[in-house]
């Protein structure tokens, strides 16, 4: 078995434009998600996440158009998250060409959304996005947060992951709000705690600073590793991450250049 550890880049998109710092000198338009997606595709990224941080519903159509263009030009899996509240939102994104959707706040308010989504569209395309933070008083020591980590939902992170898996989600995008932005490495304790409770894939997110951090997350039990700004600013390349994973005997995908 050589299932490769997946290396994923996350792009924050607002009204169809990439925001939050992308700094590649050789891009004509660093704000164009499709151009960035193609850049990452050529660089060997295994998967992409578009996180839609658009506030207004009138911009939703812009996001759908982005997903349509993406599906037509980027031949790797794309997950879309952000602001998904209803079955209709999921349906629209999948029809536009998203391979998976990630659901966060709406599932906290109504866990049945996960079950309904998994039954209707299949587990393979429903991802739980879980923003966790250390929280005294929670059985696992980790709580589920909302509003970018500012507020506690009152839920235990490990129990919530279990509940979501029971509802049929196919994957967990596990964001550590403690590690996020620190560049001090992924939260390995959090990954181990959730790994011990579910048997679906985990994408580790938050805290990556150097290539070696990624191998530690995989060894802690994640199947995939995600980063954003360190990739966008060119601090760490996809190639460096894969080299570090390989150096730790973790299988990676190293595509051969085939299409000229």
């Amino acid at each position, binding site marked *: 078995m050589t299932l490769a550890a997946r290396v994923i880049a996350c792009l924050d998109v607002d009204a169809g434009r990439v925001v939050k710092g992308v700094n590649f000198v050789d891009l004509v338009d660093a704000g164009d998600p499709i151009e960035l997606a193609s850049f990452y595709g050529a660089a060997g990224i295994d998967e992409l996440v578009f996180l839609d941080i658009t506030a207004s519903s009138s911009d939703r159509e812009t996001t759908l158009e982005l997903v349509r263009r993406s*599906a037509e030009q980027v*031949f790797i899996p794309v997950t879309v998250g952000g602001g998904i509240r209803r079955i209709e939102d999921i349906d629209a994104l999948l029809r536009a060409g998203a391979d998976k959707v990630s659901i966060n706040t709406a599932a906290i308010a109504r866990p049945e959304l996960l079950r309904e989504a998994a039954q209707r569209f*299949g587990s*393979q395309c429903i991802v739980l996005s879980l923003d966790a933070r250390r929280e005294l008083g929670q059985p696992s020591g980790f709580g589920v947060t909302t509003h970018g980590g500012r507020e506690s939902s009152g839920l235990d992170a490990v129990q919530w992951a279990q509940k979501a898996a029971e509802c049929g989600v196919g994957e967990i995008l596990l964001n550590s709000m403690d590690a996020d932005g620190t560049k001090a490495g992924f939260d390995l304790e959090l990954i181990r705690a959730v790994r011990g409770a579910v048997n679906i894939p985990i994408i580790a997110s938050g805290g990556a600073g150097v290539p070696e951090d990624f191998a530690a997350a995989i060894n802690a039990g994640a199947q995939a590793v995600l980063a954003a700004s360190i990739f966008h600013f060119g601090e760490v390349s996809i190639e460096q991450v894969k080299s570090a994973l390989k150096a730790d005997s973790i299988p990676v995908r190293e595509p051969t250049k*085939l299409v000229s």
Partner: protein
Amino acid sequence: MPPTVAVLDYGFGNVRSAVRAAEYVGATAVLSSDFNTCLNSDGLIIPGVGAFAACMQGIDRVRGGALIDARMVAGRPVLGICVGMQIMFEKGIEHGITTSGLGQWPGTVDQLVAPIVPHMGWNNVVPPASSTLFAGVESELFYFVHSYAVQEWVMTDTDPYQHPPTVTWSDYGVPFIAAVENGPLSAVQFHPEKSGEAGLTLIDNWISSLA
């Protein structure tokens, strides 16, 4: 004239990517649920995601079984992708419930038993030398996302089949079938339209083989 490819639209699968991938490698591709359009194209792609039983309902609604039978009789190529591959087999078992498939091949689609399920991500395959689909990409990884698979190939080489099948295996805790090439009928468990350049090459190989 570039070859024409129809992608069967029956409500399941990331059809946009499949159409675009076929176009990318030079085919004229359409998304269609029209019987005649799908019957007469040079190649027909059957996509599919989600549940076996739900996909079979969708296939039945567009007379997909009769469509594929008619293409097989005429020797016209069909490529099944993911659940579009699984439904080519005799039956699928989900949550203890057995659903009949199209029965183009004997065999059963059953749950993958592995520590982490779904099998999600890029995995390698082991194509025999006779494979056309994998020419030039034998060593590449392909993108899988599935919880069920055919884990036993029950057709034997000594059976009097017109086209001896070429079976490609992969492994995720257990060996399972990653692809079958059997005369006009081919199918892959992974998503070539999501497998980067390796997947595009595979689709190119298939389209190049279209009469």
